[in-house]
């Protein structure tokens, strides 16, 4: 059974336009999947349907055997502890320290009171430091997040997702606000999450080259529909076609996908 199944998923924010239309795909445990497509194609919405940060209108998302759309409030909390999320703008609390922000990832496991009092076990704190060390930012552990560079903040974001001990990590444009050097570091770390820790990754990207270099599989999204869903190298072949100006039908689709 796949870890994640998306079945005929549909979503609209208003009555006229559908953001997602009849989206179907499956993700196996341990896969590294990129979702590419122009802005407005519905990539973010698709990702947010998986952990139900937005409500599902049509179809279903089955994660780890549970129908995400049917969960009650408490079950949804438990589900979210299994799903880590990394954001384009890092979404950290800027005034708090790195270590505090990382430990925020443990709230899903705690009662409200434990969370408010900031009661964390030694094992959790050790784990937080271990992750920061792995990500190469342990030296900044006690610094305020707004004193870090973008790339460093994104690593804090990744640590916050990993300390949840998730089964899957959803990354929404994780490198869109970063320079090339920092982007490489972040993508390397994300890749190693899958390779070393065996955690599934779904990454929204708009850089096709990056998607091709890092992912096992690429899903292309356009106007809310899946227009491409194959292993990464296949995109490479077709992309070559685009570069040489050959016009076959699936290629134009991909090209339109890329021009935006």
């Amino acid at each position: 059974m796949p870890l994640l199944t998306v079945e005929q998923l549909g979503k609209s924010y208003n009555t006229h336009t559908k953001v997602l239309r009849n989206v179907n795909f499956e993700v196996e445990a341990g896969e590294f999947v990129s979702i590419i497509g122009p802005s407005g194609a519905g990539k973010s919405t698709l990702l947010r349907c998986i952990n139900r940060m937005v409500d599902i209108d049509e179809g279903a998302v089955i994660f780890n055997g549970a129908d995400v759309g049917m969960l009650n409030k408490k079950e949804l909390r438990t589900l979210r502890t299994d799903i880590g999320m990394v954001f384009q703008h890092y979404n950290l609390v800027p005034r708090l320290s790195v270590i505090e922000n990382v430990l925020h990832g443990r709230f899903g496991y705690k009662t409200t009171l434990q969370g408010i009092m900031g009661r964390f076990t030694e094992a959790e704190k050790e784990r937080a430091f271990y992750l920061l060390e792995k990500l190469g930012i342990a030296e900044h552990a006690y610094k305020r997040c707004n004193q870090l560079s973008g790339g460093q903040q994104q690593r804090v974001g990744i640590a916050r997702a990993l300390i949840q001990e998730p089964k899957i990590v959803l990354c929404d444009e994780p490198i869109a606000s970063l320079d090339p050097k920092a982007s490489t570091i972040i993508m390397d770390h994300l890749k190693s999450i899958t390779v070393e820790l065996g955690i599934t990754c779904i990454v929204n990207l708009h850089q096709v080259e990056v998607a091709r270099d890092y992912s096992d599989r690429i899903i292309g999204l356009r106007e809310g529909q899946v227009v491409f869903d194959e292993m990464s190298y296949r995109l490479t072949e077709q992309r070559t076609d685009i570069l040489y100006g050959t016009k076959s039908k699936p290629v134009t689709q991909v090209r339109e996908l890329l021009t935006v």
Partner: protein
Amino acid sequence: MQATTYMKRRRDGRISLNSGNQVQHVMQMTILILTILTIVAFLFFDYTGLNFKKALVETAHNLQAMFLEPALSHFSWSEAFYQVGITLGLAFLATILGAIISFFLALAAAANLSKEWLSKTVRIVLAFVRAVPTVLWVLIFAIAAGLGSEAAVLGMLLHSIAYLVKAFSEAFEEVDKGIIEALRATGASWWHIVVHAILPSTFTYLTSWTFLRFEINFGVAVAMGAAAGAGGIGFELFMASGFYFDLREVGMITYMILLIAIILEVMSTFLKNHYFPETVKN
């Protein structure tokens, strides 16, 4: 899992999450001190002749009489409107005179238009002026020169000036340096720069701030009427509650004050949202 060299441990060996920066420290201390002072305050309050339960029930009854059965009994509606007019008039005079005086003082206080010693002197004098509560100014002027409404306006004027000079001079200081420099390069005099560069580029700010102060001054004028005998609706409020003990009249007067205050608030919120691009705090 290995321990990292960057980890801070508390004395009991547990890992510390306290980042130990000064900001955190000062905030914690501030909260702690305020909490202690609050507890001290409640211990040392003078509770003479207080029956809390009884007082609470009585207040509830009073509020009910005030707000659910408001009525005027000691004066007529036209008289009431006239008194509201007096309060608005006092507030208006203090604001408009304050704005005019503040404009000139703010020129002297603005760091980019004035000399340092002058700017500092103005600021220090105004800090003193602001430290004396308005009601004391009004009462002091009332005996000092035996004035009526002049004392009230004068007292309110001083605080209006302290408030507006701060706001105005900050607005002046935000005027683009380049504009001033360009005019100066053409050989324009200081007054030319003020009239043709500073005033046009800050005018909407100045009027908005002045209106915000008018809103505050309305409340102050009510207070001066009640506490310093400055007349107007505030004085009627004082009479109704302290002299006639007429709760229903107190209620009606409170409603009238509330109505005007809310109208003024709506207007100044509108101005704030339209003319202040960033949030401006007093």
